[in-house]
């Protein structure tokens, strides 16, 4: 009998790796606090295993940034549990993501799911991808869908648009949707909580838990 007891979705900018900002940067520390709070919520469900899901770009399949940031945040939170890492190719089609999520839900043991995912990176003139007017509505739609546990809408996210907006979390969120939809069919109940949502550097960083 598999159980995904709870899930947390946190962004994965390199900024969250220890020391990478040089001196402390207030905006980054606020984000980090929210991420650690989300991991604390995840730990509160008393899992005995963390399944860590993150997108992997084509050139980084060995050690994707998303999984490195995830492992680092787990360490920063002091959470000492076995970690099973699942790298999903950033360009994986929705169907592949859903199936991967369903497999996570079939895992034996008490699973805490940590999903590494960012929204668009085109939210301002200084954003990494410059300003794209489609970014804000895209991020609003996907964030509301996540908080509404509308897994079907997450499964239908426009892959092409997400790629154009540099929304690197699309595939990982679709894995999470597959896993939590399966969990709900098996009788789990997930209460969504938003710990943080902002774009201090033009990238959309939602920090959410489902527990």
């Amino acid at each position, binding site marked *: 009998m598999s159980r995904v007891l709870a899930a947390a979705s946190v962004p994965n900018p*390199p900024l969250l790796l220890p020391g990478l*900002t*040089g001196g402390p*940067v207030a905006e980054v520390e606020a984000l980090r606090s929210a991420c650690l709070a989300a991991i604390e919520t995840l730990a509160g469900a008393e899992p005995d295993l963390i399944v860590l899901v993150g997108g992997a770009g084509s050139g980084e399949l060995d050690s994707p940034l998303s999984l490195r940031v995830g492992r680092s945040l787990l360490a920063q939170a002091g959470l000492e549990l076995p970690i099973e890492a699942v790298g999903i190719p950033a360009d994986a089609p929705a169907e592949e993501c859903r199936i991967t999520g369903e497999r996570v839900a079939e895992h034996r043991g008490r699973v805490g799911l940590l999903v590494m995912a960012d929204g668009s990176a085109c939210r301002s003139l200084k954003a990494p991808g410059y300003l794209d007017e489609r970014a804000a509505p895209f991020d609003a739609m996907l964030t509301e869908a996540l908080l509404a546990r509308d897994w079907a809408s997450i499964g239908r996210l426009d892959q092409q648009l997400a790629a154009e907006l540099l929304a690197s979390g699309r595939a990982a969120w679709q894995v999470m949707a597959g896993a939590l939809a399966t969990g709900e069919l098996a009788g789990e109940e997930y209460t969504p909580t938003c710990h943080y949502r902002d774009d201090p550097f033009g990238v959309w960083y939602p920090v959410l838990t489902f527990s």
Partner: protein
Amino acid sequence: MTLNLGRHAYSDGALLIMAIVNRTPDSFYDRGATYGFDQAVDRVAEVVAQGAEIVDIGGVKAAPGDEVDAVEEIRRTVDFVAAVRSAYPDLVISVDTWRHEVAREVCRGGADLLNDAWGGHDPRLAEVAAEFDAALVCTHAGGVAPRTRPHRISYPDVMVDIISRTVGLAERAAAIGVDRSRIMIDPGHDFGKNTWHSLEATRRLSEMVDTGWPVLVSLSNKDFIGETLDVPLDERLLGTLSTTAVCAWQGASVFRAHNVAETRQVLDMVAAIRGTNPPRRAVRGLA
């Protein structure tokens, strides 16, 4: 090696600022701006806020001019040293003097460091440093008398002369009891040197660093910078700062400066390039 100044121990790679505080009516750069006691107190507060670790209090201008005897030099410096000591218990207080009589009085007043800019002209100065466990700067001045200008000085090899004299002074000081960890050497830019000499001393500063003694440089707004760029006194800041960066990169530890805030930025930049200090805020490309 560790450099001990006052209550502080600084490790290799530390980049320290010695801020100039003149209690003189006639020094070349500030032209008497901090001759008054209150003005000098304000200057100390300002340079501490700007990040100086050391203040260097001077009662006699370096260039020739009105005679200032030991009594007058003591009057200008000792009470002020005591006032700074009282207001800033942790601040490293240096006094720029070549006279042992003055050195003894300022050490009694709380000075931590004797900046002997005239190259050991008074051999008893080092004895005072030993007596009070004070630090000492051993400077190259080419053997000239205090407050004289260089006139047709030549060296077979200026850096060989600098190292020979400064290391000789440092070893002598250590031999008579000055703590080795409290001794620095200074090439003495402009002192007993023409502009060619000072440029060569800067170019080859790493040879001084290689002796193992911590190196102090006193570059601020000096004539070799003015001549190199052919600019008047009030246009030497960029030349001073670029020279500061070159010296820091080669391993100098202490920088005697008028312009503390600007010097701090230069040294922070050098430390970040060297990799010993991180940037204060790195987010570019990492969001």
